[in-house]
């Protein structure tokens, strides 16, 4: 038998995630000794863990720039530019997620230390997802990502809508996970291995037990499981209910983290394991992308609850990233499309967290105050808040000078490159552009409300929330004005077969 060696485990390469997961376990115990009035200590300790993980990630990125990708835990995980970039996005989102919750939880009388530990657990799941090189790891990472989110959605219990959200999310999540596992099993049956790099060999006609058709059916089911996580049509229906019911900071983090995690797996699995069948899944994903963009944007129009509106907006944005995924099946477009997708996820993360930060500021203690009408007159009472919200809405629509515009631009650029000789992608791209015009309809309703309607917009910006707001607004603006350094990083976010 082959016992693993220290070299093959390569602990150093996966240090960021090890630190985070280990710290989460420790913090669970430490939290028991922190009195209920001082739960913010747990929050800061969690931030400390994120920070340590971030430092390790920085070292890892420097090491990556020198020696390229390496694999860890045998060949179960791979640390490449793609993984590192997304892990950075996850850490950032988690940090902002904690900032958003810091004042929210006590205000709503649901402060418990587990919030922060669970946040760390789900973040470690996301980070593992980004580096998964084996379908089993993909599945477990997905579960590790999802389970804490199910719990967090119900964190405001005994508030009924929160419990309902958790229940729905859990049931449907389990349902989708079932498909994912079934898909992985079929892929294993077809390819004789669960290693992504092994699957690709089996599909081109090698490997221990080549049986491509089974693997392809497996691929379809994997797509279902991951499509559920990123909220793609028709696996999106949980999104509005869960987003609306869950405590707002959880919604904010979920909309960003879970989606990015799902896309991390989607990109890696389909581009590494199934490149040979790109013409098949490319069509499926392109159609799903078109449906997702249309449905997300059209239904968002008739929403009056901002959380719900942002939920549909989050569905729509999944559609845009899916366009990039569909475009990435052409090998000559792949680097551009992958970097466009991860860059889009980064811009979406900062913008959406910012938008939710504003929703949190407006939300009253009883959970009301998140209707579109509640934004009326905000420009007069809280001019800075109104400016920030306008910036976020512009960014979500994709209007300069904002991060969203740059993100959309690169996604569509990749799509246009891929659409040479592929009328389907061209159609989907055109749909994408048209639907982003439609999206202006509901996004810009909020600035109109804030600036042109009378009303006394009330908001409560507490210190941590203010910091989060300032950070996200600044990032949204900077990514839109000087995107070059971040694009440069995204350019290096390439997928590699297990090194």
């Amino acid at each position, binding site marked *: 038998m082959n016992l693993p060696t220290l070299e093959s485990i390569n602990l150093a390469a996966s240090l960021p995630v090890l630190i985070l997961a280990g710290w989460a376990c420790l913090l669970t115990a430490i939290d028991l000794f922190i009195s209920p009035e001082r739960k913010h200590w747990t929050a800061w300790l969690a931030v400390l863990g994120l920070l340590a993980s971030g430092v390790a990630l920085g070292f890892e990125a420097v090491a990556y720039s020198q020696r390229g990708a390496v694999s860890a835990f045998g060949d179960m995980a791979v640390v490449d530019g793609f993984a590192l970039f997304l892990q950075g996005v996850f850490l950032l989102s988690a940090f902002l997620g904690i900032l958003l919750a810091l004042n929210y939880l006590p205000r709503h009388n649901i402060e418990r230390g587990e919030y922060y530990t669970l946040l760390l657990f789900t973040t470690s799941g996301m980070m593992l997802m980004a580096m998964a090189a084996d379908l089993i790891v993909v599945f477990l990472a997905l579960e590790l990502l999802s389970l804490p989110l199910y719990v967090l959605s119900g964190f405001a219990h005994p508030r009924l809508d929160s419990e309902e959200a958790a229940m*729905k999310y859990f049931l*449907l999540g389990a349902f989708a996970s079932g498909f994912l596992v079934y898909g992985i099993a079929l892929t294993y049956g077809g390819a004789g291995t669960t290693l992504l790099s092994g699957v690709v060999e089996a599909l081109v006609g090698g490997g221990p037990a080549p049986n*491509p058709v089974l693997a392809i059916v497996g691929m379809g089911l994997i797509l279902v499981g991951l*499509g559920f996580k990123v909220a793609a049509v028709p*696996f999106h*229906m949980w999104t509005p*209910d869960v987003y609306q019911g869950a405590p707002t900071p959880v919604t904010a983090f979920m909309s960003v983290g879970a989606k990015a995690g799902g896309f991390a797996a989607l990109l890696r699995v389909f581009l590494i394991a199934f490149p040979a069948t790109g013409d098949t899944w490319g069509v499926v994903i392109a159609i799903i992308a078109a449906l997702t963009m249309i449905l997300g944007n059209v239904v968002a129009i008739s929403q009056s609850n901002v959380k719900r509106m942002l939920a549909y907006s989050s569905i729509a944005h999944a559609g845009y990233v899916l366009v990039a995924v569909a475009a990435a099946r052409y090998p000559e477009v792949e680097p551009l499309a992958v970097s466009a997708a991860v860059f889009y996820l980064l811009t979406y993360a900062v913008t959406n967290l910012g938008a939710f930060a504003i929703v949190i500021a407006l939300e009253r203690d009883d959970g009301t105050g998140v209707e579109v009408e509640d934004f009326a007159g905000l420009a007069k009472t809280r001019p800075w808040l109104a400016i920030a919200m306008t910036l976020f809405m512009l960014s979500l629509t994709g209007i300069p000078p904002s991060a969203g515009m740059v993100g959309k631009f690169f996604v569509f650029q990749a799509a246009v490159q891929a659409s040479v000789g592929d009328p389907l992608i061209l159609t989907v791209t055109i749909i994408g552009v048209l639907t982003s015009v439609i999206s202006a309809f509901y996004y810009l309703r909020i600035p109109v409300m804030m600036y042109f309607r009378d009303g006394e917009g009330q908001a409560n910006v507490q210190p941590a929330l203010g910091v989060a707001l300032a950070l996200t607004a600044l990032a949204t603006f900077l990514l839109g004005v000087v995107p*070059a350094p971040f694009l440069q990083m995204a350019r290096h976010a390439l997928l590699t077969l297990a090194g």
Partner: protein
Amino acid sequence: MDGLFSIVPLIILAPFTGVLINVFFGRKLMPRRDSVAPGVIASSMAGFSFLIAVLMFFALLANPAGAEVPVLTWINVGDGDFTLHIPWTLKVDTLSSVMMLVVTGVGTLIHIYAIGYMHGDIDEKAASRGLEGEEALDFKRRRYARFFAFFNLFLGSMLVLVTANNYLMMFVGWELVGLCSYLLIGFWFDSPEKNEAGQIIGVLNSSAGRKAFVVNRVGDFGMLLAIMLIFWSFGTLEFDDVFARAECMIEAPQAECLTLSAAELAPQGEGEAAAEEHGEGEARALTTPIALGPFAPTLGVVVTAITLLLLLGATGKSAQIPLFVWLPDAMAGPTPVSALIHAATMVTAGIYMITRSNVLYAMAPVSGMVVAVIGGATAFVAASIAVAQFDIKRVLAYSTISQLGFMIAAVGLGGYIAGIFHLATHAFFKALLFLGSGSVIHGMEHGHHHAHGQGEHHDAPHGEDERPFDPQDMRQMGGLRKHMPVTTWVYIIGALALAGIPPLAGFWSKDEILLDASLNSTLVYILLTVAAFFTAFYMGRQVFMVFYGSERTEAARHAQESPPVMTIPLIVLAGLSVVGGLINLPVGGLHPLGRWLEESVANAHIASFNILVATISTVLALVAIGLSYLLYGRKPLEEGEADPLYSTGPVFTFLNRKWYWDELYAAIFVRPYNRLGDFLANAVDWQFWHDFVHDRIIADAFQGWAAILSRPIDLGIVDGAVNGVAQLVESTSRSLRRVQTGYVRNYALAVLMGVVAILAYLAIRFLV
């Protein structure tokens, strides 16, 4: 030592930090009326920048080649054949180092001076608005902090300009400087300069700011066109690459050179030397065709166009004919602003830019000549106007234009070292003179208050003065030597330096320019020599009118010396004006500045000292000073006496009215423009378009048609279609929303549908 270059971003960062501090905390830092914290912060930021500039100087001593320090990538678009890559990279070489030292060094002294000056100025303005107590304090807080924020911004912008390594970044600095000049010239935008009688005297500050901005924009337009043309023909905007490619295109076709960068060309070394040789010889025939859209002009034509457009930019910033009119009005701003604009920063931008582009100018001899003639003509015209002015600052303003003409003429003739040398020495003594005049004005205002305060007690309301009081009018001064000894002495030193009396700084640099002119163009040489004569004369006139003779007003009688925070910078600047010539002393083939600049200015050449030229200019200057003594010194003006130059009649009026430039512009541009606007608005738009076309033709016809169209067609079909689409989207939205039942079972069903659809597609795809 090379690592030292990497700290150069701090030189820009420091002033901008000062801006932020003063913008956000400036007001809070002033608990009392005599607090100086904003000024001290701004000055220390400027001083820090100077320190960095000095460090850069030492680093360059060790490694004269300099360095390019990348800060970040600013623009990076396109790939393949078309790319636009503009980094935010700072260029440190000997040329930019000289500029940094001058800008930060003189700038720092002006900052320090302004700490004291602005206190008096703001108090004065507050008093004239009748503000008291808390209101006055608040007013002062706002204005004091704002002033120093703008001041630091100005300094930082200028540093952006001189440290740029590409034309676009330079343009950013260029525009920022323009913006800051607008902000600072119009600093008292809300106070029309009024005398006691309530009449408006002088220029409204805000309109002076606007004039500066608009005129500058005309020049910027040329600059922008030049930048576009450069990018179009050379495919890059970075200085070194542009120059390398331009020189490459002399021999090779355009396409071959477009991929070249300076770094690739550098190792050859020979090419550069060869190009230089060419430059010395006969004008080269630059016939390489350059692809510009549908046209393919030759390289020579393109470079000439670029350099002429750049010149248009330079005439705007450096106040040359035809765009110099803004600068005299710019003295409406507080005096330190005038000093900063005229001495250290803004106006030198044009000279710096031309020097930086020397490779291009060397390739376009026609442009070089145009530059030189414009410089010479400006020097002459401005100097002649300065002779007939009475406002102390206005004399200095025209003097600045004239001296800038000297520099422009020098760089136009290829005397880049002489131009930059004069730029540096001029910065010293012109800052000195402006700040000195500020000190005089300060003293006069003080004296006026003193006299006025007593007068109110025991005298009939101001019957004494014929003219309204104007602290800047030289006719109301006189005899200030007795009241302001320090100011007097430093002012005389500055005046002598400007007049070009050896061995002061001005002599050496002016002489080098005259030498270059005498070798290259007789016309320019004559213009400059006459201008130099005028210069000595008007400075003599000014000194005698202001400091000698007897006091002509009460204000002058009660004038007071300024506080040390103002006089110490003056003394430092006086010292620099005396010894400034040392930086490029031509004795014994020394020429330190020349050797220094040779490192970065490819076409620099070192002029040798010519005793004949030096003697002529010195003798002329002495004669001019003697003449001014005869007219103003021997028999000083008395109260109410007219200027002896009035005897020249129309000539004096012509000069006093500034050659009627403003009137000319008003006649050629402003009034026709207003009339055209009026015509377009009233006649064309309103009477013809609105009254006739709209009301008669369109409205009547429309109403006829509308009757037909509105009911059946519009409401029925068009509206229906538009509303229909909107309703469709909305109703789709609503019906899709209805699918969202809230039942988990339904949701699961949707997932199942997706599964079946996907699997069916896959199965069909692979099995059929």
